[in-house]
């Protein structure tokens, strides 16, 4: 469990994190924000590399700054691309394990398990200097998982991974989350995050804009009605029926000849009405989508505000 209470962090006159209060539960939580939003600073505060200027950070009830006990609960996969380049992947992960207090033998065995887990077993004996970005990400993940921590923080972990690598990486994350761990993944690529989790923290210019489930957050943004696009056999008749049956803010035909765009603040009622269009009125609905229900749209609205 991670708790942040009124946490602010200044870098001289520049504020990195501004009065953030939140509790991070078990499962995967995404930390979202543009570059410079304060994601990495927040991660550094949680991993005890930085002290908050004001407020307090607790990891399982412990102050993480320079605290070896707190570090036993934390696994951190940083966004940096630097390594001791002369080491092989296996040597690096074993070394990280040794520095966590594991014996040489246990560290070697655990390294082999992790190399299998992150898909690096066949390549881990080559020097790190020859690794691709994706291979480096896997090695960092392996070193973060070494001591089986309760809390795992991953700073931009999908950078440089190929599509298959991303899929594998997400599978590993889901397996870890199912085991009851708290996993925090920072990213500025919304599409990736959407595939990982629906629970998130949205940061912008150091502030926490919103936290919680993406649908819940979206529903709370009343100033922006949901935009729903419907493709059907008779859009004009469908528009007339929907206008009567559902609470609608606006309705327009187009942009295609068989398309209809509806704006509503009560999308669930609209979806029920669309179902009745097909069942009771015989209108064939070919496609139904809500483009602004995506994380990207939610993020856009929040930042715009």
């Amino acid at each position: 469990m991670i708790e942040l209470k009124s946490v602010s962090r200044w870098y001289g006159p520049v504020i990195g994190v501004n009065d953030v209060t939140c509790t991070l539960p078990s499962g995967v939580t995404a930390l979202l924000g543009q570059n410079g939003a304060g994601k990495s600073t927040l991660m550094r505060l949680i991993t005890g590399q930085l002290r908050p200027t004001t407020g307090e950070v607790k990891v399982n009830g412990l102050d993480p700054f320079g605290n070896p006990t707190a570090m036993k609960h934390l696994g951190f996969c940083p966004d940096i691309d630097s390594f001791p380049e002369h080491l092989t992947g296996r040597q690096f992960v074993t070394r990280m394990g040794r520095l966590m207090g594991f014996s040489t033998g246990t560290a070697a065995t655990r390294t082999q398990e992790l190399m299998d887990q992150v898909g690096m077993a066949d390549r881990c004996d080559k020097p790190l200097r020859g690794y691709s970005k994706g291979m480096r990400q896997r090695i960092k993940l392996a070193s973060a998982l070494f001591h089986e921590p309760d809390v795992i923080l991953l700073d931009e972990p999908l950078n440089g991974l190929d599509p298959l690598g991303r899929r594998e990486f997400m599978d590993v994350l889901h397996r870890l989350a199912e085991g009851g761990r708290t996993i925090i993944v920072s990213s500025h690529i919304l599409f990736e995050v959407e595939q990982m989790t629906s629970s998130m923290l949205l940061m912008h210019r150091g502030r926490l804009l919103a936290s919680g489930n993406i649908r819940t957050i979206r529903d709370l943004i009343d100033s922006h009605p949901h935009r729903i696009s419907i493709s059907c056999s008779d859009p004009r008749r469908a528009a007339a029926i929907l206008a009567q049956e559902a609470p609608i803010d606006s309705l327009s035909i187009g942009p295609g000849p068989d398309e209809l765009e509806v704006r509503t603040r009560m999308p669930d009622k609209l979806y029920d009405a669309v179902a009745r269009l097909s069942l009771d009125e015989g209108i064939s609905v070919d496609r139904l989508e809500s483009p602004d229900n995506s994380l990207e749209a939610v993020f856009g609205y929040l930042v715009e505000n």
Partner: protein
Amino acid sequence: MNSAIFLTHLQDTLRPGRLIPWIIAALGMCGIALVWKSLQPDEALLTVYAQFSQILLYRIVILAAVVFSMGVIAQEIEQKTIVYLLTRSQPRWALLLGRSFASIVSVAAVGMICVLTSAFAILGFKAFTTPEVLMDCVVAFMAAGVYGSLFVFLSLIVNRAMIWSLLFAFGWETFAQNLPGMRPVSVMTYLNTIGLHEAKRANGLLTFFSGDMVVADTPVWLAWTVLIGLWVILAVGGMMIFSLFEYSPREDAE
């Protein structure tokens, strides 16, 4: 303290890529020692060795101390790999202590190799039984410890610690010894004192580099006390500072 901290850093500092330049330096010192000896055919061999030791040998140990000390923390910060160290379940003081000690052992090893090869070039096989040479090995160890702790300490409190350390090592340490009243504030004064080299060793400009322009007798017991005291104070101070302050790459802070 976890022995892995010491051993992993020792592996890094003594890996061939790092060690080869110092082996070349030791061979170079050996060559210079031969030239030095040939330039002073009338001088007693022990006097030639004493001059060489004070003017060059001690300084190569200091240079090694500067280079290896930067690898303890400063280089990790610069390369951003400090993150991996700080997120391990080791107390920060233990990280600093283990890595500093590994660095000191490496510098002492380099220093002793330089002392023995140079002494061999000047004194032949007698070098390995000469008390002055053996004592210089002890001086190399003490220099590694005191200068190593000093430069690690500097790297914890200032940016561009390498430049400051080099300025201190080759500027301050050369001048302070020769300035009246300033000898006590030079580490080299105390190292020269615990060395067994007797009498005046150099003439002309070399007198300046050997720090003999101002003659002042420092008691040997005082020299040992100051060196050990400095080592302890700097090491403990460094551990306290590293435990209390943040060491995170600043430039990519978001």
